[in-house]
């Protein structure tokens, strides 16, 4: 087991989740309750990472984050270093790549709350903030937890985009998935097998957990 790679993968996943949780809540709730011109276009744009090959998305991010581009230059000035082949760059790429995994389940869970429930809460004298905290979040929490678990698991196993944007720098951008690839290239099938088994187990647990909480919710409240 490449413990450095595992540690880096866990760190990247945790930071990605930390950024995407508030972002997913704000954007997901907004999309669930508001109708505006261009909503479908925005939703399609946010869903692009679902259908685009990770290497293609990684290539565009590589071009965008490169110091030669306007955005890359701006970010380089802001961070004091190039974001390409750096952990910070990896975080940005990971956030963008995981946008649909975070936003879509949260949006769906907010959409599933009937309008009357929210209106009843307002008629009970709850302010919009209290409606969010006392009614909406408890009812949407299965979607929120699913989004976070899926984002974490997805980031942990991501390969293509990490390789394109981060390269393969030990202790900087070499994640577990890249390490598995390295081990296979070096004919170290045992190490690759252990790490693959870990990712497989983690993925199964993550999926089971999301189904479990969804099922418990259905049994209790639906």
């Amino acid at each position: 087991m490449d413990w450095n790679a595992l540690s880096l993968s866990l760190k990247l996943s945790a930071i990605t989740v930390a950024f995407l949780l508030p972002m997913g809540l704000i954007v997901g709730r907004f999309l669930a309750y508001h109708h505006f011109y261009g909503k479908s276009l925005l939703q399609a744009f946010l869903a692009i990472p679902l259908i685009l090959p990770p290497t293609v998305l990684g290539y565009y991010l590589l071009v965008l984050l490169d110091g030669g581009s306007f955005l890359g230059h701006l970010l380089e000035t802001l961070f004091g270093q190039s974001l390409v082949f750096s952990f910070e760059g990896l975080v940005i790429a990971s956030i963008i790549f995981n946008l649909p995994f975070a936003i879509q389940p949260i949006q769906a869970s907010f959409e599933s709350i009937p309008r009357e429930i929210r209106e009843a809460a307002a008629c009970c004298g709850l302010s919009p903030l209290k409606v969010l905290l006392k009614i909406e979040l408890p009812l949407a929490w299965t979607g929120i937890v699913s989004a976070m678990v899926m984002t974490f698991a997805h980031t942990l196993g991501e390969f293509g985009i990490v390789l394109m944007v981060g390269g393969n720098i030990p202790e900087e951008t070499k994640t577990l998935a890249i390490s598995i690839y390295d081990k296979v290239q070096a004919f170290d099938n045992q190490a690759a097998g252990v790490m693959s088994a870990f990712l497989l187990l983690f993925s199964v647990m993550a999926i089971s957990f999301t189904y479990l909480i969804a099922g418990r919710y259905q049994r209790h409240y639906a």
Partner: protein
Amino acid sequence: MPKTGLKLWLRQTHSIKLNIKLHCQNNEVLALVGPSGSGKTTVLRAIAGLYSVENGLIQCQQHCWLDTKKAINVASHQRAVGFVFQNYALFPHLSAQENVAVSLNHLSKNKRLKYAKSLLKKVHLEGLEKRYPMQLSGGQQQRVAVARALAREPKILLLDEPFSAVDQVTRRRLYKELIELRRSLSIPIILVTHDLNEATLLADRLCLLHHGVSLQSGSPAEVSTQPVSTQVAKLMDQPNIFTAKIVEQKPEKKITQLLWCGQIIEVGYRANYKVGQKICWMIPASDVILHRRRKSSKGERENPFTGKIVDYMLLGGYVTVSIEINQPLKTYLSMSVPLHVARRNELALGIFIGVSLLSDSIHLMPYESLRNEF
């Protein structure tokens, strides 16, 4: 500004068209009646602050909740409104007690739960406090919704078709409970329903809405038997609406005579109609009196007609029959009688019967072209 009750007018030309004016006093039940899409629920939502109208004024007790001219629009959570939604809209993740306690946000947690428990006891739900909405029957859910709506000590109670999701037996029991409950409340109650019988049973007054316009307000009996137009009569489900011509005015005898189906009908004197004028008239099905088939009586001289029964329908202890009055012109008169009367007179399809139209029950309306005009 009125010191008590609700005063409201709403006008809107875009989106959902509205032109509604109504008031409801404290301790009064006002039923908003009308077909689907007439704007009943929109009015409730506007009162609760859940729907914004272009132009309007909503004053409740001593508070102005909406005045578009003065740009006043109080947020829904700041209006003291008790709202019972059509499907109750209970919070599925909270127990019955917690659902009620949500409305008591101004109290400490202990006091909240204690008071919520006492409210649930009031609506006969003692012992079910810890149950979640999905563990309650439709009637029990409705009681929780009512307790939750009243917990806030609202200035008005809004009921949006609260009986539509329960079976008929439960509905009857809930009717009784609402009648009892309203005696203990001194606030206006607005009930949205499309069931005219429900409105007649529960409401002091009703307001008939159609396409966002309030057509007529008054007591259920008044709107039902004295509609201002044929449109109101049709919406009040009156089956006997016809056209006729005024043929004679006899003010000295307090009689106005109409010509209908080639026969003269006498009604109470109506000074505002002229001889020769075309009018519409109606009579409730319950006020068409059946002549006893084996024994004539004195009342048979009052606007008598004969005809053949062409339709016979038994519903809830009452029989509704359609009588073909004038065969070549296919004019049908509808009449409803208790089942025992129908049995005693051996009413059946195809038999000829005599009926009288009570002059006091005949209501005249301005002329409008009808399908069965002759």
